């Protein structure tokens, strides 16, 4: 979906900023909002660029810098931690050889931490883009990554 199509879904009012920004992030393969897009959105709803930037930088789901095609978010909170007997994060770092906040050189994966995603009854959990994966095991994490790599997911 291009930017104009996204904007046309919403009235030109600042209250829809977050909705628009999420849509742009979703529609962009690199999951971010570019400076040009940010300016266009600001002009559309009639606020300063800085106001849009302040919103962008406040919310952790939004990014102003390009990310991988698949953004992996690992839950870092206590209920997942208590059930994480193999270390989800370390498994992913082993597989991808990147740190938290980094993107793989092929631009396929970014690795992030997330606050609790409400899957504590099926902990440990992670998200890849908007898909949630629960009851993770070492093998399961590796096979999920492999599925994305090979284009099966």
């Amino acid at each position, binding site marked *: 979906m291009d930017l104009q199509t996204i904007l046309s879904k919403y009235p030109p009012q600042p209250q829809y900023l*977050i909705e628009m920004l999420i849509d742009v992030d979703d529609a962009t393969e690199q999951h971010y909002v570019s400076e040009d897009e940010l300016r266009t959105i600001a002009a559309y709803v009639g606020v300063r660029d800085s*106001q849009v930037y302040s*919103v962008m930088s*406040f*919310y952790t*789901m939004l990014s102003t810098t390009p990310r991988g095609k698949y953004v992996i978010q690992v839950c870092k909170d206590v209920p997942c931690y208590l059930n994480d007997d193999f270390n989800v994060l370390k498994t992913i770092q082993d597989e991808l050889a990147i740190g938290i906040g980094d993107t793989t050189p092929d631009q396929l994966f970014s690795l992030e931490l997330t*606050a*609790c995603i409400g899957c504590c*009854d099926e902990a440990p959990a992670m998200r890849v883009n908007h898909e949630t994966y629960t009851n993770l095991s070492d093998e399961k994490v590796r096979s999920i990554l492999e599925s994305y790599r090979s284009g099966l997911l």
Partner: protein
Amino acid sequence: MIERKELTKRFGVIDPLSIEDYINHDGYEMLKQAITMTPEAIREEVRLSRITGRGGAGFPTAIKMNSFAAEKGEKFIVCNADEGEPGNFKDRYLMEQDPHQIIEGMLISALATGATYGYIYIRGEYRKAIAIMKEAVTEARLYNMLGTHILGSSFTFDIEVRRGAGAYVCGEEFALIESLEGKAGRTRVKPPYPAQRGMFQHPTLINNVETFCNLPFILRIGGAEYAKIGSEYASGTKLISLSGNVRNKGLYEVPYGRTIREVIETLGGGTNTGRPIKMVQLGGACGAIIPDELLDMDIDNERFEMFDSKMGAGAIIVIDDSHDLFDIILRNMEFFAHESCGKCTPCREGHIQLVRLVRKFVDRVATMDDYISLKSLADVIHETTLCGLGQTSPTSILSTMEFFHEDYLDRIQNNKEVRP
């Protein structure tokens, strides 16, 4: 029978996306009844029920509703579905399993108070719940449960589903309202409360998902009958999100009056590791951490106030003796350091210092001075911040200083720099 399924009775029974299914399982019956009642009569049932808010603060729902009903002009209703407190997942289930129950609860609230428009603010991470709620709202419009002249009456009400974008603090009512207005989620000074001046300065009634879900139930059995469920401290049922080192993690609906131990042992099946329970965190990251000896207390809000803490939204996180108390507290503090919106200095700067101090206990290099600083800083954050985040975030520290005092002393006495 410990459980009593009222709000969750349709879970797994109906297709959440089928409004017909909901209607066939007495859905929207209470909307029809409410349309025939006066706003005062509906609010009287809510008052009689003694229900309190289910989002964590436990404020009497009827008081908030009455003060909102007294306001004039264009008024909004907001459903707070920004469930972000670690350990809680009840609202996700309510939205994913029975979305129309929420819509019906909002409609009853609107009839009781004269509001004409509503928002459901769902955290952006809950992608599935967002899709289901949007679909349910669309269906409800097709069936004339939303829109103008609802079910042939003069009642008008519509709902918009809005997404958050990853900010725990937006679960706080004014932060949520700021976010709905398209801004960064930073709270406002109270009073005035949202019921007087909320979204775009209009009176706004904001309640948790579970609170709205209780309204059809209250009307069905009547406020007086509802008040009999539970205990003298709190009425009705409570959804409990049970997680951590426990065999049967999951969502349970129990009447107030049941004990924490009953939930953990009977429903949860005890620890999944076979190890003893070292501690239980109640409510989530913002809640008290209590030892095994206190698990025979019941789950009501009022009782928990004896140690200045509450059950919150109903999370119970079980932690066995293989875990270090300070490691758990550190994770809580790192969470708040990240989630502070930055508006109040004690919260913005204080959590960074709390992390630093707690890490000293984890690393076994803490001194008595660190303990005193930790206590004093936790008290300052608790007492001087504007919103519920800073007011509750130090609870895991303050409660453990009381209930696990020995652990603190042990760390100080066995400081590895003093006694290598």
